[in-house]
């Protein structure tokens, strides 16, 4: 059991990073740190995918020197998934940052608890 952790070193790291990001996004009060947590979480997923898609000793799936045998190349699909995922997480990050800017302008704090307290006190 323990030796598996070393064989699958990258996957282990990816899972630890995922957990770090997830807990930061869930528990941290500071909005900017929440966004950082979200990015760590997503990047950990991309690391996991990239590692799973890599096969030791093989090359990137670009045909050079006319080698068309599939056993020479790694799986290109995870790379595509990672790219798509990056696009998604960039747009979500942009949206979250925009929200944070607006909240900061209105409530002059980044602390989400303080923000919701001040919003409650504010009369609509």
């Amino acid at each position, binding site marked *: 059991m323990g030796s598996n952790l070393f064989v699958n070193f990258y996957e282990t790291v990816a899972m630890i990073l995922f957990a770090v990001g*997830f807990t930061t996004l869930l528990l941290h009060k500071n909005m900017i740190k929440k966004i950082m947590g979200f990015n760590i979480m997503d990047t950990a*997923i991309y690391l996991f995918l990239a590692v799973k898609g890599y096969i030791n000793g093989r090359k990137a799936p670009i045909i050079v020197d006319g080698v068309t045998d599939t056993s020479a190349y790694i799986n290109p699909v995870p790379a595509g998934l990672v790219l798509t*995922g990056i696009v998604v997480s960039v747009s*979500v990050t942009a*949206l979250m940052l925009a929200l944070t800017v607006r*909240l900061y302008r209105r409530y002059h704090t980044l602390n989400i608890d303080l*923000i919701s307290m001040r919003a409650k006190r504010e009369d*609509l």
Partner: protein
Amino acid sequence: MDFVCNFPPFSIIFCLACGIISSALNGRAAKRLSIALVSLVGVMSACVLAYTVKTGEAFIYVMGKFPAPWGNELRVGTLEGLMALFFSIIMLLSILGGLRALETDVEEARMNLYFVMIDLMMSSLLALIYTNDLFTAYVFVEINTIAACALIMIRANGHTMVAATKYMIMSLLGSGLLLIGICMIYDLTGHLLMSNIKEAIGVLAATGQYEIPLTVVIGLVCIGLAIKSALYPFSSWLPDAYGYSTASSSAVLSSLVSKGYIFLLVKVFCRVIGFDVMVGHKITNILFLFGILGMIMGSLNAIRQHDVRRLIAFSSIAQIGYIYMGIGIGNNAGLVAAIFHIMSHAASKSMLFICAAGLSEVSGGSKNFTDLKGAGYRNPAAGIGFTVGAFSMVGIPLFAGFTSKVYFAEAALTGGEAKMEIAMVTLAISTILNAIYFIRAVISIYTPRNEHFQNAAYRPAASMVFSIVLFISLNLLLGTFSYPIANAIGSGLFMFG
């Protein structure tokens, strides 16, 4: 391949295209385009539904003509057609019903952006319904989240911004879990298309290989989607998001956004992992438990509310609990009941939000029950609509909510002894709790007081009256002619395989 088979991709692409065009139009043109678009999608979905009912089998649309293990596919059966048709009807009626409230809540200059988001929302819902590819489903889940966040915060005030932030945080947690779950499924099976995954998982389950990773995957995907669709302990963001946004947004969010995720979960159950494998991993018991908790806690919280919108929002949590309880019963009848309740809840809840906005309109914009006293007399259409919605939620015969409760009870009878007893008792308790707060609300709006809100010149918007009338007829239709609809759901689930 018949021409009708092109309609599902057309409807998704039309929605995306209209979203892009709307960003360059002014508010009024964007509104007209959006309404026309949703109606067109409704007509196309009706054609698709009629086609699949006629042929009696599902068809697969191959995007870009790349063959099965590599390409991207849409898969359309009776259930998908039915859901698409139903979602577009609800979307159309929600927009129409909230038009006047929209004009007061949203600045004129930003009106077109609202309809951009409506178009994107429609496209992502359709994609979630039709897609046969898990990763595409994830991408559209994110589009759905972003559009929903924008729909909440388009009414620019402090409360909606905080609500949108909380919604985003919870949603991102959910989609993170969903994404890692999907990645693990890809690693386990080597496929992203649902039908291929199911074959591979069938082999894995039969040989007992990768038992623990499979359990982890099931847990991650189910919890991720449960967070996003606001199952009880993860629903802290919901009351603010539904309570403070504009009427159309609340209606769309409560009746479509969370339901889209639940439908995706049903697809994961039936088309990706396989229902027997899911039941074998006991995840249904967990969903059942949380569903039961949600039914009780949502209603208990709703009783304490003095704000009509927040009351309806808390009742949503209870109703989501019903749906998860249905899924958690763990047999086919439970799934049919859950999907039927998706429809009946969507029809009643969006009507309640629209009517609550109509009642506030004649009570000086207040949402508090003390100000709403007698609002049912001042705005009769909204009053009747609210009453019908409340009756449906409580489960009075003839209305949609009653029928879905009957289906739940029937399903529970076949779900094993322990689950049957718990489900029956909770159904009874939850019905009483629903009755306490909804009947109180109805009595409150028909208590003749607050004469100072009297305004003889008030005329409700024609679009709102139109949408309320259609909502009521839809509700009665679901309540009285449920048999063919439940039949269609059953055959659609059978097509899921």
